[in-house]
């Protein structure tokens, strides 16, 4: 599975309707989908002293899941993930719309809006 890129993964995620009522249900649904597509991933990967990212796909693509959460805190967390050179891409799957820059510290960012997915 060397053909997984942050772009291709984002595109596929945007075509899904997923539960947003609780973060746990959303994570389970995402895990179920990753399993069903045979995508290699790890859950709850430690990124720093107080951070664990929700999913790490193909070792270098991070996926963070947030249902409803203060925007500024989401952004700070993403910022911390992008420190260091572990990630080649970071995807935020969220029920809270927020404007994101194209990249932080050189790591490309992608937004998957669950609201948009629910259309």
């Amino acid at each position: 599975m060397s053909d997984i890129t942050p772009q291709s993964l984002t595109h596929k995620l945007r075509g899904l309707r997923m539960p947003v009522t609780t973060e746990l249900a959303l994570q389970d649904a995402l895990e179920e989908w990753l399993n069903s597509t045979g995508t290699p991933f790890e859950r709850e990967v430690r990124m720093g002293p107080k951070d664990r990212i929700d999913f790490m796909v193909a070792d270098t693509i991070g996926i963070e899941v947030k249902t409803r959460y203060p925007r500024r805190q989401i952004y700070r967390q993403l910022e911390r993930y992008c420190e260091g050179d572990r990630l080649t891409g970071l995807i935020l799957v969220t029920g809270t719309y927020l404007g994101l820059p194209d990249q932080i510290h050189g790591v490309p960012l992608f937004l998957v809006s669950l609201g948009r997915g629910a259309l």
Partner: protein
Amino acid sequence: MTITYGNLNLGENPPHWRITDLQPHVAIAFKRLFTKVPKTAQKIVLTDTDENRADLHWFMQRYPLKHTHEADLTAGVERITTKAAERERILMPDWKPATASGFVEGRQPYGYQQQAAALTIQNPNLLLGDDLGLGKTISALCALTSGAPLPAAIVVQPHLAGQWADRAEEFTNLRTHIIKGTKPYDLPMADAYVFKYSNIVGWTDVINTGLFRTVIYDEVQELRTGRGTAKGVTADLLSSTADVSMGLTATPIYNYGDEIFNVMQFIEPGLLGDRDEFMREWCDWGKTVKNPDALGTYLRDKGYFLRRTEFDETVSAQMPPLNTVDWEVGWNEGAAQDAEDLFKTLAMTVLEGSFVKAGQAARELDMKMRLLTGVAKADSVAAYVDLLLRDSPRVLLAGWHRDVYDIWNRALQHHNPVMYTGTESPAGKRRNVERFTKGDARVMMISLRSGAGLDGLQEHCSDVVFGELDWSPQVHKQVIGRLRRPGQTRQVTAHYLHTAGGSDPVIMDMLGVKADQSRGIIDPMQGFYAKQMDDSRMRKLAMAVLGREAGE
């Protein structure tokens, strides 16, 4: 001899059970179990229903009462058991209905429609949540021809009264009469009287006589605000005087999960407990249902909610899946600039005005923001539709604001657009549908909330464009259902056009939450759902316009 704790007697006119001389601790236990009995009641009286007979029978295993009605009680228990077994039998996939009587020569309902009818009569009461386009009208008419007591009241949205009467005449031998106006008059003989949600209130006195023994609510989500409205109060009366209540809707929940409580109150009151119980147990006193999947499963298991989709074996309609594409479109800075100052004033009032003024301003701001968003992207939307019409014979264009329609009307003039909104009369709407399907109009602008139940477009059009977004996901689904229903031979594509500014991002966040509530309750236990998203056609069209080759 067994010890008894009180006396039980069967009374007449109307039949009822009277419980007397209960010992105090048994009276407390009794009132805890039979919540319908007021805690302060000195005389305990229960109506004579099979449910109450079964409950009394069960109560007396713990606290025997002195009585001579063992045979009556066990007969009630047996009827309840048989009924449950019969319900299970109807729901088996191999259930074979008899030929439906009361249908005209050459017309027969489908098996799954008869299944819904049989279940309604068996229960008797049903919320039929079949997906759009599966023929809920026919299922309801079938319930009337196959044993639901007549005469029936059918309550429909105002613009659909004619369509219901037409269907009844086309398929069945039922005689219908459309109720005119809000002032009661002498009703002609008929099997089914077609009311409108807008005129039932005027007929409260007639309804109170108990004339209508069956009631069918079409698009029952109209009653989602419960008894808080005048029509809700009258509908409540109608349900309580009728023997059979049936609600039809593919989209029982428009917003948050608590609406299902209100809707069920008109179909099978008490199924979800009383309002406080429901709010406490299911909603944690909020508007959202905590576990929508569990609620959905419960309603189905009880047999009072039946929902089939085209994917069900029993239905297996020959329709390709829905194709969804969504595009972020540009917006017109000029339009945004004009209203900027007004916005600032309003926003200041929201933040700093008095309580009353702030509330008013907040509502106005919401409305203005949606209008502005619609107006700002109207040109882009019109251009998109224009592009789409190079490839597609006809396009259904959904919007909400008059100002937005005006811009579209001007920009799409060469396609002879027609309207289907709240402003047109029923006759005007029919004419416009005629022009769109058979005439020279290639665009029909439809108001997001005007289309429920509209039939006959599916043979002529397979593209719907959302130029404005609604706060409720099911409203979009209703509009798509106008095209994606039996008779449609092509794949239907829904084009959602949204912008990164204005109210669209906020609306979309909200749509995600709401869509998840209704998904859990009506289609429980689905984790993710992969949409079909094929935008290659639009990409090709865009390439052609720009004179480029595909793949560039």
